[in-house]
C-alpha cells in the first residue's frame, strides 16, 4: 500500500526527505504521474508528489525567460507562453498517448526526464533550454544551480546533470527555462514512398541546407501504404514560402513531393512528437534508439531481421522508435544493432516485469558506471530517491 505525500514547499520536502533518509526508506518521486512507465519499476512505500508545489514564479517575455515550480502543469506553462506568442523551443513530448496514462504532465518532470521532441535537431533538448534548477537532494538539502539568466558558467553545470536524472539524484522543486518566440507560421515538405536509406539521405540534405529545417522525420508504413518523409520549416510567412521552395530543389525530392499547409504540418509534427501512430497496447515493448542519423537505416535493417520493427525515424534519423518483439522485448537484437552503430537504446515502454528484468537504460562501460554510482552517492548517499529507476542499485 503506497502512501502519497505532497509537500507544499521546499521546507516540507526537505523534512520528508531527511526523515526518509534517516530511516533508509525509499521514496518514489512523481510529478503528474503520466510517465510512470518510463524507467525501471521503483519499489517504495511512499510517493513524493510535486503536485502541491505549483505555479509560474517568473515570466519575462522580453528576456525570454520563465520559471515555474516543479509541479506546475505543462499546460499552464504553455498557455502562459502562448499568450505572448512564445513557447518551449524543445517541443516536449506528451507520453499520455503512448502509456495510456491520465493526469497532467508537469514542467518539473519535463526537466527531470529531459523530455524533448522533433525540434531537438534545431533547438536542443530540455537540457539545452533549462537554465536554472532548485532541488532537494537525498540529504534533504535544497540546492540550486544556474539561475534566470541565459549565460551562466559559475560553478559546475548541475542544471544539465540533473536534467534527465529521473529524480534519482534530487527532487527538482523549481525550474527556469529559456523560452523562444512562436513563429508566424510553418509548413512541411512531404515526400512519399521512400525506403529508409533514401529517406535519411533526403533528411540529411535538408538538415545540411541553410534553410533552418526544424523537423526531419520518416514514417515507414507497415500497412503497405506509401511511407512519408517530412521536413519542417518555421518562421515569417514570406520567408517560410521562399525557403520551402529552395529546400524542395535542394533535397531533390525523389518520388512524390508535396508541401502541406500550416494546419496539416502542425498535426503531422504533433503526431511525430507524441507517437500517435504507435499508441495502442500500453505495455507493448517500445525502444528509443539514439544513433548517428546516417546509421539508422542499417540499425532498422538489423533489428528487422529479428522480428522487431522500426516504426518511426525522427531527428533526421538520429532517433529511431522500434517495436520490440518477444518476451525479452527483443533486447539482444536492438542493443546489438544500436551498439554496432556506436549508439544506444532505451526500453521506453514494456510491462513492469519486463522492465524489472531487462536493462531499460543502455548499460554503461565500466568507467562511466563507476562514476555514475559514485555521483549517485554524492547526491543521495542513502540511495532513497527513486532507487533503481535508471539502473539497478542506483
Amino acid at each position, binding site marked *: 500500500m503506497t502512501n502519497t505525500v505532497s509537500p507544499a514547499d521546499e521546507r516540507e520536502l526537505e523534512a520528508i526527505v531527511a526523515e526518509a533518509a534517516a530511516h533508509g526508506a525509499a521514496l518514489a518521486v512523481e510529478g503528474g504521474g503520466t510517465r510512470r512507465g518510463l524507467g525501471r519499476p521503483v519499489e517504495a512505500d511512499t510517493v513524493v508528489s510535486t503536485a502541491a508545489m505549483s505555479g509560474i514564479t517568473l515570466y519575462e517575455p522580453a528576456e525570454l525567460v520563465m520559471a515555474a515550480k516543479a509541479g506546475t502543469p505543462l499546460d499552464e506553462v504553455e498557455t502562459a507562453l502562448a499568450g505572448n506568442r512564445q513557447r518551449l523551443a524543445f517541443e516536449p513530448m506528451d507520453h499520455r498517448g503512448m502509456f495510456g496514462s491520465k493526469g497532467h504532465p508537469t514542467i518539473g518532470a519535463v526537466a527531470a526526464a529531459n523530455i524533448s521532441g522533433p525540434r531537438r*535537431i534545431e533547438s536542443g533538448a530540455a537540457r539545452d533550454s533549462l537554465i536554472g534548477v532548485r532541488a532537494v537532494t537525498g540529504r534533504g538539502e535544497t540546492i540550486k544551480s544556474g539561475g534566470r539568466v541565459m549565460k551562466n558558467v559559475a*560553478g559546475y553545470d548541475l542544471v544539465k546533470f540533473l536534467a534527465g536524472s529521473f529524480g534519482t539524484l534530487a527532487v527538482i522543486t523549481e525550474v527556469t527555462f529559456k523560452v523562444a518566440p512562436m513563429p508566424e507560421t510553418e509548413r512541411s515538405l512531404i515526400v512519399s514512398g521512400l525506403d529508409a536509406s533514401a529517406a535519411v539521405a533526403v533528411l540529411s540534405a535538408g538538415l545540411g541546407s541553410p534553410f533552418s529545417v526544424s523537423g526531419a522525420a520518416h514514417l515507414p508504413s507497415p500497412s503497405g501504404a506509401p511511407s512519408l518523409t517530412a521536413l519542417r520549416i518555421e518562421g515569417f510567412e514570406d520567408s517560410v514560402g521562399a525557403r520551402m521552395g529552395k529546400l524542395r530543389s535542394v533535397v531533390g525530392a525523389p518520388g512524390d513531393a508535396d508541401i502541406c499547409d500550416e494546419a496539416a504540418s502542425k498535426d503531422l509534427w504533433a503526431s511525430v512528437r507524441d507517437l500517435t501512430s504507435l499508441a495502442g497496447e500500453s505495455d507493448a515493448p517500445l525502444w528509443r534508439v539514439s544513433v548517428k542519423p546516417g546509421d539508422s537505416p542499417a540499425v532498422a535493417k538489423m533489428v528487422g531481421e529479428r522480428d522487431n520493427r522500426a516504426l518511426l525515424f525522427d531527428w533526421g534519423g538520429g532517433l529511431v522508435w522500434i517495436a520490440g518483439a518477444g518476451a525479452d522485448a527483443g533486447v539482444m537484437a536492438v542493443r546489438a544493432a544500436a551498439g554496432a552503430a556506436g549508439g*544506444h537504446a532505451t526500453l521506453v515502454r514494456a510491462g513492469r516485469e519486463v522492465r524489472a528484468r531487462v536493462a531499460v537504460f543502455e548499460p554503461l562501460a565500466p568507467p562511466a558506471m563507476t562514476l555514475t554510482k559514485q*555521483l549517485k552517492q554524492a547526491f543521495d548517499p542513502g540511495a532513497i530517491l527513486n532507487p533503481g529507476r535508471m539502473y539497478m542499485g542506483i
Partner: protein
Amino acid sequence: MSTIALPEPDSATLSRRDEIVAGLDALVGPGALISSEDERRVYETDALTAYRAVPLAVVLPSSTEEVSAVLAFLSDNNVKVVARGAGTSLSGGALPSADCVVVGLARMNRILDIDYANRIATVEAGVTNINITNAVSGRGFFYAPDPSSQLACTIAGNIAMNSGGAHCLKYGVTTNNVLGVRMVLIDGTIVELGGGHLDSPGYDLLGLTVGSEGQLGIVTEATVRILRSAEGARPMLMGFASVEDAGACVAAIIASGIIPVAIEYMDRPAIKVCEAFAKAGYPLDVEALLIVEVEGSQTEIADLIARITRIAQAFSPTVTRVSKSEAESAAIWKGRKSAFGAMGRISDYMCMDGVIPTGRLPEVLRRVQEICTGYGLSVANIFHAGDGNLHPLILYDMNDPVELQKAEDAGADILRLCVEVGGCLTGEHGVGVEKRDLMPVQFTPRDLRQQMLVKNVFDPGWLLNPNKVFPLDGRPTPSDGRPPA
C-alpha cells in the same frame, strides 16, 4: 603582485622535482617535456596576466594515451596538474602553481574526422576554435560558438569554460554544440562521454564535464556539431542618445519574435576606443551603440532589417546604418571583436564577465559607473545585449599595486551587483582563480558543497586545477559525502 591568496607550494613536491621530471621524460616522446626555467616561464600565466607562477614542468603530449600515462604517473606521485589549451583564459583558468605540472594540449591539434552527412566533426582538443570552422567552411558549414579569442583559443579550453561568443544568442554556447568527448581522469582512466548521436545514455556526464574548468579530467578529443551557414548575414548599427533607449529597443526586438543572430552593445567609452582601432565607422556622438546582425537570404535579411528598423523608431535612434558590403560588415565586426585588444592599447584593464537580466541594464550601467568612479577608475562597457552578458572593462595601471587592488575591488563590487539584480558572476569566462572567492556571493554553502562533492568523485585528491573555482576554505575531504564504511 597578486591580491587573491594562492596556497604555498607543496615543499615535498618541489623537493622531488628532478625525480618527477625524470619520470615524465620516460613517458612522453622527444621534445614533449619542458623543464628549463626559461621555457617553463612561457607558461607562467594566461590572459589574466596579473597572476604568475612558473610551473614545476610542462608536458605537451601527442595522444590521449600519453595524457593517460602522464596523469597516472602524476596522481601516483600526488602532483597537481593544470591543463592548458592556448592560455587565453581571462579568469586565470590556466594559471599554474610552482608545485604543478602543466599538461598542454597544443600538439593535439588534428582534425580527425569531418562527417557532413551527420553534421559532426571529431577533433583533438588542442585544435583552435577557428580551425574547426576553417576546416568545414569550404562546404558552407561552421562551428557555432565564437569567443572573441577564437583565432587562438582551443576547443579544450572552450569545453573547460563552456565558452560563448557574440553569436550564441541564436546558436547556443559550447555545451549546446558538443556531442561527445574523450576524457582522461586523474588516475589515467580514459572515458568516452556521448558520441556522434544527440543524447547520452544515463546521467549527463558530458553536460557535467563542459564548464568544469579542467577540474574533473582532461578532455583530449571532442565531437562537435557543425552547422550549415545561413545564406547570408548582415549587421546594422543603431546609435542612441541614452542607455534606456538602447535597452528598451533590445527588449522590443526580442518581444516582437525576432531573434537576431547577435545583438551587441557598446557604451560611449568603448565606442571611442574601438573606432580608433578598427575605423569601423561607429558614430562617436551617441551614448549607446547596438550592432544587430540578422541572417538569411537577401530578401529575408532585407525584411528583418526593415522590421527591426520599424521597431527601433519608437526609441528614436540618432543613427541607423545598415552594412552595404562584405567589407563594411567585416569592419563592423572587427571593431567589436577587437574591443579587448583595442582597449589594451590605451590602458591595462580588467575584463569583468557578469550576467544580468537584460531589463536591468540602465540601472546596472549607472551603478557600474558609480562603483568605478568611487575607486577613481574609468570603465568602458561591452555587452552581449541579447543574453545579458556584461563585460565592463575596468581601466587601471598594472604596475601600481594600489590601482590593481582598487580594480579588483571594483570588479568584485560589480559582480556582487550582477548577482544582486538576479544575474551571475560569469557568463563565459569561467570562475578560475579570479572569481573563486566570490562564489559564496552567488551560492549557499550547501550549493558549493554539492559541487565540491562532485569534484571529490572525479578527483578525490584535488590534484586537477585545484586552486580554482571553489574558495580555499571549507573544501570537503575525500571521504566527505560518502556513507560510513
